[in-house]
């Protein structure tokens, strides 16, 4: 069960209407290393991961949904006042004819989200290493977006999200050690 709280994890502000930036940012919404992929990956892996790290996957997976909501808020604010002409100039005409200004789970190139982006191997070490990699890839994506963004208000939110990827990566690295120690302990018998 999840309980929704009517607030963002961190304030999201944008300086101006900027559909071009929204087109890039959608990578973190429905892209391979985006927040949707992260949330669904961890919350799905948690059923079969050893007890010691279930809580971590559960809680980081839940936090990813808060990040998804922040990205959605950014995209919404960057596009809500845009005219069809402005959307077309930003390369969002093909998005517009299918979705108007509605959000959709696809990457910056328009490729729809697919479950093939994520894995659940059932092998604890394999799963946790995928999770570390996922956090590092998401961190890199945030950096590439920040490099292309000229919106200081938006960048404040993006920097917060980039830092969260680092924290999650570090938490998962520690979890990997816990899993390795547990596996080695079992070998004694």
């Amino acid at each position: 069960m999840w309980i929704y709280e009517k607030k963002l994890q961190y304030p999201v502000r944008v300086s101006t209407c900027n559909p071009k930036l929204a087109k890039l940012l959608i990578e973190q919404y429905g892209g391979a290393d985006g927040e949707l992929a992260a949330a669904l990956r961890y919350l799905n892996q948690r059923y079969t991961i050893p007890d010691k790290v279930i809580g971590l996957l559960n809680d980081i997976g839940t936090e990813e949904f808060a990040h998804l909501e922040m990205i959605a808020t950014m995209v919404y604010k960057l596009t809500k006042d845009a005219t069809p002409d402005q959307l077309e100039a930003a390369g969002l005409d093909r998005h517009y004819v299918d979705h108007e200004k509605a959000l959709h789970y696809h990457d910056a190139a328009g490729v729809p989200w697919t479950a093939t982006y994520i894995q659940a191997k059932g092998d604890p070490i394999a799963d946790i290493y995928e999770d570390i990699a996922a956090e590092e890839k998401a961190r890199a994506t945030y950096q590439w977006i920040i490099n292309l963004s000229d919106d200081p208000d938006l960048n404040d939110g993006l920097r917060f999200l980039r830092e969260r990827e680092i924290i999650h990566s570090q938490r998962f690295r520690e979890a990997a050690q816990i899993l390795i120690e547990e596996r080695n302990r079992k070998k004694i018998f």
Partner: protein
Amino acid sequence: MKQLPKEYYTLLEELQALDFTILELNLYLDTHPGDKATVEQYNTLTGARKKVKKEFEKQFGPLTSFGYSYSPYPFHWKEAPWPWQV
């Protein structure tokens, strides 16, 4: 965007700041449940969060539904703006 008093943003940020620390402690405690001092810190901040949430809701409406916040009549859930509208 709805026009909201400054207090809305101040109280919201206060809650977001508390939640940031609580979340960090939570993720740490997920793999270090035996750290007594951190559990105490977690509980202290949980108390502080309850107070700020109550104060926010008194002024701006429920932050949670599904029975996690009381509602005045008529049902008040839609009163506080949705987070992407502020």
